[in-house]
């Protein structure tokens, strides 16, 4: 149907929303007023416009009165615009000939005590909506084909779960993992909360399955350099750094024995040292040693002792291109190293909880020169301090898992060594979710002591010498006095941080971050797995602090979302984009320089003139280019200059005339 050529016939529908709107705004008066506006063929009010009978009013008018533009004055478009767009489409009209006036959230609910003014404002908003509706144009649906592959950024539990789910649905999954080994942070943990199982027993099978699944391609030691394209057709450029060790490696470990280079082992959060050729723990996947490029001196000692001849130090980085229909970001987190806090960095026996996880883990190295107070089973005096570096001005967020993790570790220490004295200094004990309250009770029954502190009077940690006994003073408001504890070890429950390069990754993917630097979801309640960028989804701690179970849930959830367009094979994209009138374009390139998506570029046309050209599928429709175009050659569909100008005039003119 060519609505373009037809003279606009606007139908206006004013919703009372029960009494939500009608209790403040005189909806009948607004409808009567709307009927007097130019091109309005019919105006009605009804108690619930979104109800079946309400929708029937609109449907009937489209047929009987040949309405070709529809204006509904009701709730926010964020609420029911999709409903009415669907309705007009079902009745054979283009969904973009619909316009909404927000009479509830932005009138009746915020002006509840000013009935007259609210009614006048409602009339103005309707006049503005009609002014725009008269100029609305049908927009063509846009569809693109979808590459049947999901790209997963990050090979931790969330990313691997997501990749496996994609793969098990019969599609390709490609995992880009920065480190030479997969499994992520979970492989560093000792035991997991609630079940107290060994972390490697929990995540091991997941890692193995991902490694073995034929539909999953894993690029370890790889960086995501650039992402181009758009939903359905992303193109990722990946650089895989050389591992210098081939799969012929038998993981015998002789190379590491002879390697003369020692560097701090980040797998053990800097507590120990490792060689330049290394494997973070026995049984890491893939079971192939890797050379730390930055540390290796190329001395060649490792090459000499390698029996299967697996080491070649002449490897070069290589570029990989991956096409993907959708992307899942599961890039994880970094634990905070709270330098200066509670003597961390000054006293060797003030450690973080992540460091404690390593010390308690069976994959933590043993040895004379390795600091581990748990190497022997003698009773210890341990104090945990919760919220160490979180819920403060710098990091106002709660890291969510640290309370339960601290309870778990306190419980494990007590169970292994009942003579140990374990205290927890807390601000609030935030145990949440299934079985966590019970777990808290279990932990308490092992005989740990809990002391409360207030954020304005944090505990004081004092030591006599860098490794000597510590004294922890806690000003407990419940006891109403200060408690002084002598401690062998102080454990700081530090928060999880967004990755240091999360801003860079956000820029590569065209997604944004919340104030805490974790990636922003499209809607905190309704679209928690999506990002505002179509086709890019979130999983795991990259989106915000969560435990393993939640990361797995989100990995599966993101995979389910990411495979919707892939399984459909085609995806519809919003036609609200920029269009260039080449006759008006002067080729000045201002638009090109402003576009964040590289969606508009100035190219030479057949006549040799420089003209802007929009890559429609890459355009997100923000309108930044349109606002800047000096010759007005750019039309922002659905928010055209004419349409917005008409709204501006309609907002002001009636009153001027009055």
């Amino acid at each position, binding site marked *: 149907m060519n609505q373009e050529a037809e003279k606009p016939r606007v139908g206006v529908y004013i919703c009372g929303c029960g009494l939500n709107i009608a209790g403040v705004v005189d909806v009948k008066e607004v409808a009567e007023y709307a009927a007097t506006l130019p091109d309005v063929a019919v105006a009605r009010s009804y108690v619930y416009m979104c109800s079946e009978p309400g929708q029937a009013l609109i449907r009937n008018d489209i047929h009987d009165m040949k309405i070709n533009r529809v204006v509904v004055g009701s709730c*926010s*478009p*964020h609420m029911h615009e999709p409903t009415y767009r669907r309705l007009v489409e079902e009745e054979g009209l283009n969904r973009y000939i619909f316009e909404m006036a*927000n009479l*509830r*959230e*932005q*009138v*009746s*609910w*915020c*002006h*509840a*005590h*000013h009935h007259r*003014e*609210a009614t*006048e*404002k409602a009339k*103005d*908003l309707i006049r*503005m909506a009609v002014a725009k509706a008269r100029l609305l144009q049908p927009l063509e649906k846009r569809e693109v084909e979808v590459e049947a592959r999901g790209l997963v950024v990050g090979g931790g539990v969330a990313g691997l779960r997501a990749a496996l789910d994609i793969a098990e649905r019969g599609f390709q999954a490609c995992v880009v993992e920065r480190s030479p080994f997969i499994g992520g942070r979970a492989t560093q943990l000792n035991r997991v909360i609630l079940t107290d199982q060994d972390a490697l027993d929990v995540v091991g099978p997941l890692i193995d399955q991902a490694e073995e699944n034929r539909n999953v391609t894993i690029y370890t030691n790889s960086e995501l350099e650039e992402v181009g394209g758009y939903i359905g057709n992303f193109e990722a450029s990946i650089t895989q750094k050389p591992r210098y060790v081939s799969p012929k490696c038998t993981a015998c470990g002789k190379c590491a024995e002879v390697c003369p280079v020692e560097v701090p082992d980040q797998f053990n959060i800097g507590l120990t040292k490792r060689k330049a050729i290394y494997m973070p723990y026995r049984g890491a996947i893939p079971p192939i040693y890797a050379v730390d490029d930055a540390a290796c001196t190329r001395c060649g000692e490792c090459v000499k002792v390698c029996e299967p001849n697996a080491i070649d130090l002449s490897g070069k980085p290589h570029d990989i291109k991956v096409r993907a229909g959708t992307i899942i970001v599961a890039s994880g987190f970094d634990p905070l190293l709270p330098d200066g806090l509670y003597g961390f960095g000054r006293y060797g026996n003030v450690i973080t909880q992540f460091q404690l996880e390593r010390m308690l883990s069976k994959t933590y190295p043993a040895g004379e020169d390795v600091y581990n107070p748990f190497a022997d089973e003698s009773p210890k005096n341990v104090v945990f301090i919760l919220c160490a570096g979180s819920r403060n001005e710098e990091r106002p967020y709660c890291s969510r898992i640290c309370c339960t993790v601290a309870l778990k570790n306190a419980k494990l220490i007590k169970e292994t060594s009942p003579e140990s004295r374990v205290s927890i200094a807390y601000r609030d004990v935030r145990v949440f979710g299934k079985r966590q309250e019970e777990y808290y009770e279990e932990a308490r029954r092992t005989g740990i002591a809990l002391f409360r502190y207030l954020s304005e009077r944090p505990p004081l940690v004092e030591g006599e010498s860098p490794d000597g006994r510590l004294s922890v003073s806690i000003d407990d408001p419940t006891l109403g006095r200060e408690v002084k504890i002598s401690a062998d070890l102080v454990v700081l429950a530090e928060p999880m941080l967004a990755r240091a390069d999360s*801003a860079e990754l*956000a*820029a590569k993917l*065209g997604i*944004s*971050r919340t104030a805490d630097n974790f990636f*922003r979801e499209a809607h905190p309640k309704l679209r928690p797995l999506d990002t*505002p960028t179509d086709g890019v989804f979130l999983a795991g701690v990259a989106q915000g602090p969560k435990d393993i179970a939640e990361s797995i849930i989100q990995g599966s959830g993101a995979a389910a979302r990411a495979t919707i367009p892939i399984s459909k094979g085609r995806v519809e994209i919003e036609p*609200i984009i920029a269009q260039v009138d080449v006759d008006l374009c002067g080729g000045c390139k201002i638009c090109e320089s*402003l576009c*964040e*998506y590289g969606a508009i570029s100035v190219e030479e046309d057949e006549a040799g003139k420089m003209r802007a050209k929009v890559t429609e599928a890459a355009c*997100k*429709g*923000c*309108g*930044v280019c*349109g*606002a*800047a175009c000096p010759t007005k050659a750019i039309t*922002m569909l659905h*928010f055209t*200059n004419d349409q*917005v*100008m008409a*709204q*501006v*005039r309609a*907002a*002001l*003119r009636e*009153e*001027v005339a009055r």
Partner: protein
Amino acid sequence: MSEFSPRIVGFLCNWCSYAGADLAGLSRLEYPTNIRIIRVMCSGRVDPAFIIEAFKEGADGVLVAGCHLPSDCHYIAGNFKANRRVALLKRVLEQFGIDPERLRIEWVSASEGQKFAMVVTKMVEDLKKLGPSPIRPGGGDGV
């Protein structure tokens, strides 16, 4: 003569500020009825010509509201562009005898209903002190 009631045109970005205005309503926060909101996808869509048109048509004030600087913008950096344009336009407006205070840019997130209500309330108060726009019939900053 009744008390002067300023007329404000507000350009609100779809993702943050329009949702923030919705939240103000959802939270039943009351603010003056003076603003007429136009939804745009991004504050970066706001062509200075829209703002000039609003003043030309007699608006006493124009509000541009978008996602917080630096990184909240749904479209990565549209808010920066809006910020620059508004800053420049204020200088231009001043040369035409329009008090730059009449044009405001504010950052209101989807969770800042309270802030949105405060921004409008404050703007109405300030505009009342400034009086009607000189362009408005009967208005007068002496132009």
